[in-house]
């Protein structure tokens, strides 16, 4: 019986318990070979981008030398050019503004809905929940044409960053409702009931007890909506042509490519400078993303 129980404990502990050392070593060799293989695949394009962004222009276009290292002194000139000669800072600021207001709207829409779905009993609650989850599947590619017309004819927001602020919550809200629902369900009902016994109204109980307890959840959702806003491409490409209103993804990809002329150094510098902060932020969210997905599928 005891050996049986050991056998089913997780793989890792089984490995640790195994007296057969050579097997453990073999395992770790496999792990590291695999890691190196995937690191090369994952990082090769990014390393190429990074090296190129620090190369002198003449070094970039010199096709006679091996491309993966410097043959003239590294330079910051592309980064300097980006800040001084392009609207990079404006684009970066636009991205921050757009993502910030996307988060605000997402929270305003998602928090009440998630609370209702997690706590309240009302007809069709289940169907609403599933319906909202499904809207996460509606692809922007189906919506960008009609939304262009709506944003230019019904409200005059086209070609401003506010067009994106209005539209981005369509793809952030559904998943956020779903995630927050999970967070609210982990808060014991008793806590809320106790507050109501103490004389709080339902709304007061939510504001004073439930929300403070779900700060980690709210933060996760905010980070998620923020990074999605920073990553978006299709709507920004479709709605914005005024260079001063562009978020950074569109500014870098369209304004730094003029016709057939590519400013490789500036392009790579801009892409990394805008991309790495998003990646760092996203990383905070990753574990919760895993939870959200599994919760949607099984719980």
């Amino acid at each position: 019986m005891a050996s049986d129980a050991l056998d089913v404990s997780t793989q890792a502990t089984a490995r640790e318990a195994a007296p057969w050392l050579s097997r453990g070593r073999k395992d770790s060799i496999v792990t590291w070979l695999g890691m190196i293989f995937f690191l090369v695949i994952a990082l090769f394009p990014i390393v190429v981008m990074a090296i190129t962004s620090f190369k002198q222009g003449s070094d970039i276009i010199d096709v006679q030398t091996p491309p993966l290292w410097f043959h003239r002194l590294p330079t910051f000139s592309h980064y300097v050019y980006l800040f001084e000669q392009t609207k990079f800072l404006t684009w970066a600021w636009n991205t921050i503004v757009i993502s910030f207001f996307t988060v605000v709207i997402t929270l305003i829409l998602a928090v009440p809905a998630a609370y209702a779905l997690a706590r309240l009993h009302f007809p069709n609650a289940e169907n609403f929940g599933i319906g909202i989850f499904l809207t996460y599947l509606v692809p922007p590619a189906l919506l960008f044409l009609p939304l262009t017309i709506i944003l230019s004819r019904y409200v005059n927001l086209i070609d401003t960053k506010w067009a994106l602020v209005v539209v981005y919550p369509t793809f952030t809200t559904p998943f956020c409702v779903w995630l927050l629902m999970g967070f609210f369900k982990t808060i014991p009902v008793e806590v809320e009931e106790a507050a109501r016994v103490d004389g709080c109204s339902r709304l007061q109980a939510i504001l004073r007890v439930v929300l403070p307890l779900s700060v980690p959840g709210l933060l996760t959702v905010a980070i998620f909506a923020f990074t999605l806003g920073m990553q978006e491409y299709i709507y920004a490409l479709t709605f914005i042509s005024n260079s001063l209103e562009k978020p950074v993804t569109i500014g870098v990809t369209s304004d730094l490519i003029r016709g057939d002329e590519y400013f490789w150094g500036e392009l790579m510098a801009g892409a990394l400078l805008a991309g790495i902060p998003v990646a760092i932020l996203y990383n905070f969210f990753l574990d919760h993303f895993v939870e959200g997905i599994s919760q949607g599928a099984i719980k």
Partner: protein
Amino acid sequence: MSLTRTPAAVEAVAAAPPREAGRLRRFVRGEAAFGYLLMAPVLIYLGLLLFYPLLLSIWFSLTDASTGQPFASWVGLKNFTDLWSNETFRLALRNSFIFTFGSEIGKAILGTALGFLLLRRFRGKRVLRALLVLPWTVPVALTTLGWLLLYDPTFSMLNRTTGAIGFPYHPNWLGEPVPAMIAIMVANIWRGFPFSAIILIAGMTSIPADILESAALDGAGFLRRFHYVIVPMIAPILFVGLLFDLVFSFTDLSVVYLLTKGGPENTTHILPELAYQNGIQGGDLAQGAAISLFMLPVFVIACVIMLRILRRREI
């Protein structure tokens, strides 16, 4: 009072003062109203900016709308029949499926391998994981610029690097039809394989250890545990992840738009990118809408399957 009631129910009703029962009913009614009130903002918002545009799109596709004249006259299914006889469109439709399924297979293979590697325990895992998911976490539009440089006909970092290690195949990646298809799929696989790994990890870590333990105590061998416990438990998660990924791959235009814009000679168009080029850049709103609606069946099928998974978990 009806005779069919059980004594317990009779007692309960008798015990509760009538005022109490009324309050209960009011409370339930109030809860429902409160629930709908809290749901209202999100439902109105999604109705206006999600369902209404969807309907508008269907309407546009049945008219001869242009971006300059969006509310135009009814032409029936003409846009769809025109598209069906259009060589470029049919190629784009075919490419969309090749692009999506080709990418999905690549992502599944790399993602599964990476997922199982990341499930192991080793030092420095958090840092390594952060590096390995970079293709997924850096915005796709920006990393695609890196691929543009890798594939560039003159400065192709890819050909120069593979040339240096003696690899013999050096096509003009974005300038010839078949290499261009491969090129956009490789960039898309690279972009998405960490996500497949994340989904796999989500599936594997969602199996509670005590369930496996009790299955083993009941005498289930590894194969039986794998078949009856592990597979049914992770399958829904993998499936949900796969569906999301399929829909995203099928409807994302950034990789193709940035790398080839459908070229060379219209051989690498995919549906979302063609809808953008015709609908926005060409101003043919009706045709653009019709092209994007060809993606609707894929979305609907994904929804139906998803719905079945979500319903099943309730039972």
